[in-house]
C-alpha cells in the first residue's frame, strides 16, 4: 500500500459537473482529490480487505438475528421499545437490504481493524462506485496508469444487479421513491445516484424530499403528488424517523423501507462491543465495551463514540500517552461505547480510512477517504485507489 502522486485529469471538474458530482468541492475545500492515489497489491485487497469485510458483514448479520430476538440486547442498544416488534418482524420476514459501508483502519500490513459500520445511511457511494471507476479507466487510457491496473470496485454493477433482482422477485414495490433531506447536496446526489442504478434496472422511480413525505388521513405515506409511497429508499437515519412525529405510523408497514427496519441494529455503535463479546480477539475487531457510566473518565488508549452518531461527530480520544482530543457535534451526551484506540496510519501526513462496501450481502469494493487529522469527518477528502501488481 502506497500513496502515489499523479497528475489530475485536466477536465475532471467539467466531467464532475456534468455527471452529477457537484459536491466535488465542499464549502470551497476540495472533496474529490485525484492529485494522489492509493496503490494496493491484489493480495492486500483480497486477503486484507475483501475477505475480512465479508467476514465482518457475516458476523454483523448473525448479530442482527440474535439482537432482534433479545429484549435485553435491544435495550442495551437504546432502541425505543415501541419499535422492537417492528424491527424483529422485518428481520424475520427477510426484508431486503441494499448496501452498507464498513470503515476499516489499514496500513498495508497486518489485519485491517473495524472502526465502525455504516449500514443505515452510508454516503460517499457515488464517488466510490462511479467517479473513482471513471478515473481509473481514463487514467489507464491516458497511459498515466499501467494497462493492467485494476480497482477493487464492482459496487455499481452490484447495486444494479441487486435492484434488478429485488424487482424481479417482487420484493420491492413497482415504484421506488428515493428520499434525502432537501438541503443536503451530497445526500441528494447519493439518492440520485441510487435512483439512477434502479432506473437502469428497469424500476419505476420517483424522488421526494424527506421533509415532503406526507401521511394521509388513513395512514399512507405520500409524495408531493399525493401518490402513495410503496417502497422508500431513505438516506435518513432510522433512529431519527422513529423519534419524529410520523414515526409511530411506520409500524403499520404500509410503506416498505430501504434500508429496512432491522438496520436500526447495525447503525448503532453498540454493535461494536456486542461483536467483541462474541468474537473476542478476532484479528479484525478492536476491543470495545459499553460505557460503564455516562461521564466516567475515559481510560487511556480508548476512544469514546456515542451510540448514535455519524460523520465522526462527538468522538473523544485518549491516547495511550494520555493525550486527549476530540470532535464536536450534534449527537450530545447520550449513551456511548468505548473502543480501543488504534490510530489511522499516516501517509505523507494524511490519514486514510478505508470504506469497504457491502452490496446486498457481498463485499464489493472500497473507497478511501483521507483527513489531515486522525478522526475522519465529513470534511475529509476522497482519494481514488488502484490495484497495481
Amino acid at each position, binding site marked *: 500500500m502506497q500513496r502515489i502522486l499523479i497528475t489530475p485529469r485536466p477536465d475532471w471538474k467539467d466531467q464532475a459537473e456534468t455527471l452529477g458530482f457537484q459536491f466535488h468541492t465542499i464549502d470551497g475545500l476540495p472533496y474529490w482529490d485525484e492529485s494522489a492515489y492509493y496503490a494496493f497489491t491484489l493480495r492486500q485487497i483480497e486477503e486484507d480487505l475483501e475477505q475480512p469485510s465479508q467476514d465482518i458483514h457475516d458476523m454483523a448479520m448473525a448479530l442482527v438475528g440474535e439482537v432482534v430476538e433479545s429484549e435485553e440486547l435491544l435495550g442495551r442498544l437504546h432502541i425505543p421499545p415501541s419499535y422492537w416488534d417492528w424491527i424483529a418482524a422485518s428481520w424475520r420476514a427477510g426484508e431486503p437490504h441494499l448496501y452498507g459501508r464498513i470503515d476499516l483502519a489499514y496500513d498495508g500490513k497486518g489485519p485491517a481493524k473495524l472502526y465502525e459500520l455504516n449500514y443505515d445511511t452510508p454516503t460517499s457511494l457515488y464517488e466510490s462506485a462511479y467517479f473513482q471507476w471513471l478515473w481509473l479507466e481514463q487514467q489507464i487510457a491516458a497511459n498515466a496508469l499501467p494497462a493492467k491496473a485494476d480497482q477493487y470496485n464492482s459496487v455499481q454493477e452490484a447495486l444494479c444487479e441487486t435492484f434488478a433482482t429485488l424487482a424481479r422477485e417482487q420484493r420491492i414495490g*413497482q415504484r421506488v421513491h428515493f428520499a*434525502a433531506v432537501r438541503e443536503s447536496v451530497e445526500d441528494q446526489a447519493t439518492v440520485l445516484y441510487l435512483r439512477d442504478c434502479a432506473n437502469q434496472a428497469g424500476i419505476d422511480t420517483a424522488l421526494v424530499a424527506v421533509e415532503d413525505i406526507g401521511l394521509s388521513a388513513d395512514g399512507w405515506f405520500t409524495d408531493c403528488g399525493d401518490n402513495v409511497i410503496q417502497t422508500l429508499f431513505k438516506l435518513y437515519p432510522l433512529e431519527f424517523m422513529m423519534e419524529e412525529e410520523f414515526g409511530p405510523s411506520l409500524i403499520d408497514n404500509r410503506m416498505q423501507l430501504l434500508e429496512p427496519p432491522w438496520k436500526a441494529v447495525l447503525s448503532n455503535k453498540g454493535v461494536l462491543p456486542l461483536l467483541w463479546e462474541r468474537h473476542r480477539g478476532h484479528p479484525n475487531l478492536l476491543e470495545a465495551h459499553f460505557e460503564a457510566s455516562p461521564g466516567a473518565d475515559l481510560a487511556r488508549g480508548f476512544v469514546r463514540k456515542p451510540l448514535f452518531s455519524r460523520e465522526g461527530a462527538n468522538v473523544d480520544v485518549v491516547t495511550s500517552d494520555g493525550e486527549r482530543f476530540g470532535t464536536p457535534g450534534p449527537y450530545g451526551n447520550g449513551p456511548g461505547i468505548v473502543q480501543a484506540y488504534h490510530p489511522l496510519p499516516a501517509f505523507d501526513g494524511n490519514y486514510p480510512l478505508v470504506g469497504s462496501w457491502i452490496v446486498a450481502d457481498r463485499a464489493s469494493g472500497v473507497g478511501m477517504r483521507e483527513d489531515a487529522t486522525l478522526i475522519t469527518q465529513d470534511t475529509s477528502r476522497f482519494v481514488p485507489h488502484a490495484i497495481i501488481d
Partner: protein
Amino acid sequence: MKRSRYLRLTLMAVVLPAGLAGCESGQPTGVVLNSIADCRAQQVEVAQCEAAYNKAITDHQRVAPRFADAVQCQQDFGQCEAVQEEGRTSYIPPMGGFLLGYALGGGFNNNSGMRGVSGGVPLYRDYRGGYINPNGDMVSRQPGAVTGKRGSIATPARAITVSRSGFGSSSAARGSFGSRGTGG
C-alpha cells in the same frame, strides 16, 4: 478483474437532454384500452384482444381492489358497488378499461405482422383519470402503449382487501420527517 466492466449513468448525466436520459429500452409491454371497441385499432389479432378483454371482465369481480368503507371507494374511484363475501360487505370500483399485455418481448410476429398477446387485466379509473391495476398500481394516465412493468398482467391470487384512500388522497400533514440530520 476486480472492477465493474462497463458503467453508465442515465438520469444523473445532465448532459443528456431530459427525456432521452430516462428512456426505457424500447419495446412496449402492453397497451391500455378503454373498451373492447378499441381492439380493432391495435397491432394484435382482434380475436386475441377480445378474448383478453373478456378475461378481464370475468376476473373483475374477483380481483378488483376491495374497500371496507364505501366513502373511501367513492372518493378514490366513484360509482363503487357493494359486494358480499364471506358475510362481509366490501366495495369495489367499476372496471374502467383494461390492460392488454403483449407476449414476452413485445415484438411483432414475422408471419402475421402482429404482436403476440399474453392476456388482459381489468383497470380502474381513479378520480383523476389514472388507470389503476388490481394491485393498486398506476399503469398509465392515458390510454396507449406502456413499457416495463406497467405492462404486467399479473394479478393477485385473490382480491386484496384494501382501505386505501392512498390512491391520491390528500396529505393530512407534511414536514414531520426530516427536521434535522443527514447521511454519513
